[in-house]
């Protein structure tokens, strides 16, 4: 469904992605692992066109979405993204956060949206939090609202950028549960994560990023139990 072909991206002299090639099939869950600064966030931001790439191509269902000058908005509507720092809109209630994009982009009304939004909130255990403002919610709740907000656009693909990294340890579980639930529903997902156990349990494919290159990729069993590269082994020995 999604294919990166030799994608290269630099900030000035700093080459952050270096000929990265990656394939994600429909319904697959791909986890990006790697040290801080290895380019995970940049890779995800390139996928939904928040950053333009310098070279290579990104194909979504065969269509080249990395074509310079292409209107990014229609592409972004098909790809949901959740950030490490939640990035909820602080001046809106949880419900308004979720309804904004469907209202403005899809032209739907609040009344029309209400049942399905309420259903989404309920599904992720937030039924009684719809009228709360972000600063009235815990980190875990905010992150779940952010996920609901992305899901409300009915994306075909979801990108998650270290969404549990800013959370207190006891709140990580509730957010990972949401990911598990989505996985169960067959959502196609690309995650940058430090939750190795979670990745090992659920991912179809693990990509180890090292200094902007995909050093090694394969099923969790291969990466975690029989890594081929010395760098992968070194990284894993540090985080496991």
């Amino acid at each position: 469904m999604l294919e990166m072909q030799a994608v290269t991206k630099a900030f000035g002299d700093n080459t952050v992605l270096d000929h990265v090639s990656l394939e994600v099939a429909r319904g697959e869950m791909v986890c990006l692992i790697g040290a801080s600064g290895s380019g995970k966030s940049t890779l995800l931001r390139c996928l939904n066109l928040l950053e333009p790439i310098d070279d290579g191509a990104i194909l979504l269902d065969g269509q080249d979405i990395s074509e310079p000058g292409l209107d990014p908005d229609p592409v972004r509507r098909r790809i949901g993204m959740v950030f490490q720092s939640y990035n909820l809109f602080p001046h809106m209630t949880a419900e308004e956060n979720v309804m904004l994009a469907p209202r403005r982009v899809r032209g739907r009304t609040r009344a029309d949206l209400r049942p399905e939004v309420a259903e989404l909130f309920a599904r992720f255990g937030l039924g009684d939090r719809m009228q709360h403002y972000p600063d009235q919610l815990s980190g875990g709740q905010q992150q779940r609202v952010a996920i609901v907000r992305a899901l409300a656009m009915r994306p075909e693909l979801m990108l998650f950028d270290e969404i549990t990294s800013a959370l207190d340890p006891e709140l990580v579980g509730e957010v990972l549960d949401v990911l598990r639930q989505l996985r169960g529903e067959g959502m196609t997902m690309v995650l940058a994560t430090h939750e190795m156990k979670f990745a090992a349990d659920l991912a179809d494919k693990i990509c180890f990023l090292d200094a902007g290159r995909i050093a090694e990729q394969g099923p969790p069993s291969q990466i975690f139990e029989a890594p081929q590269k010395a760098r992968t082994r070194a990284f894993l020995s540090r985080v496991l």
Partner: protein
Amino acid sequence: MTVHPDTEAVAPAAATGRTRRQAYEARVRRRSTAVAAASTALVVLAIVTLVPLAPGWEAVKRSFFNGEVFAQTFPTLVQAFLWDLAIFAWSVPMITVIALAVALARDARSPALFPLKLFGMLYTDIFRGIPVILVVYLIGFGIPGLGLPRPWNSPYIWGTVALVLTYSAYVAEIFRSGIESIHDSQRAAAASLGLGRADTMRYVVLPQAIRRVVPANMNMLIALQKDVALLSFIGPVEVLRQAGVFKSLLANFTPYVGAALIFLAVTIPATRYADYLMARQRRERS
């Protein structure tokens, strides 16, 4: 409630339902209130006793603090101040709209909008660079001088235009700083949802930016309330001019003191409110 046997001092505080720390803080508060009151009283006392000893005090009192003149002129001054309030009231919405438009123009990224951006830049540079009174004179006399028919040459209209143009330039800069202060991650979040630039600005960035600059804009409003008096230079008899007329008529400066009091009655509460908003925002940020 468990009271440790060998810390008896804790007992009374605990009995009144306060912790030791609260009791201590209350003591400190009481003491500093007393000190502040005493030193303020001392300063006021010094002013009240020393100033009348100055050789010119009697003359100054007659000229500046003349009760009779005050009583005679104050009601008219208050009436004249209604003009200040009216001009202020109809200027504010215009300033808000124009300032916002200019701020957005300066934020424009599309090359087709470059002239707009350039205009916004020139506009803010020019009008922030000229003293308000000059703008009032130039526009208030200059544009009607082109030959506009009545009532379109009214000094109220063009004086207001002068104030609106000047203040919009300042407020536009405030709005722009507000817009720039909104973290890029908010824009990224909006973009990732497929919201376009206009919608992102309107629903995500602006509401936060405007809220953030409310205290700064309060200060502009206070300055505007005072600068409304500059319209008196091109004709309208508002409170400053009325006070000046009384001054000439009665050869006494008490009407100016009256006018100052009227301004203070409006600006002090507004200033306090702005400071309160500012302090609240600082608390929220930290």
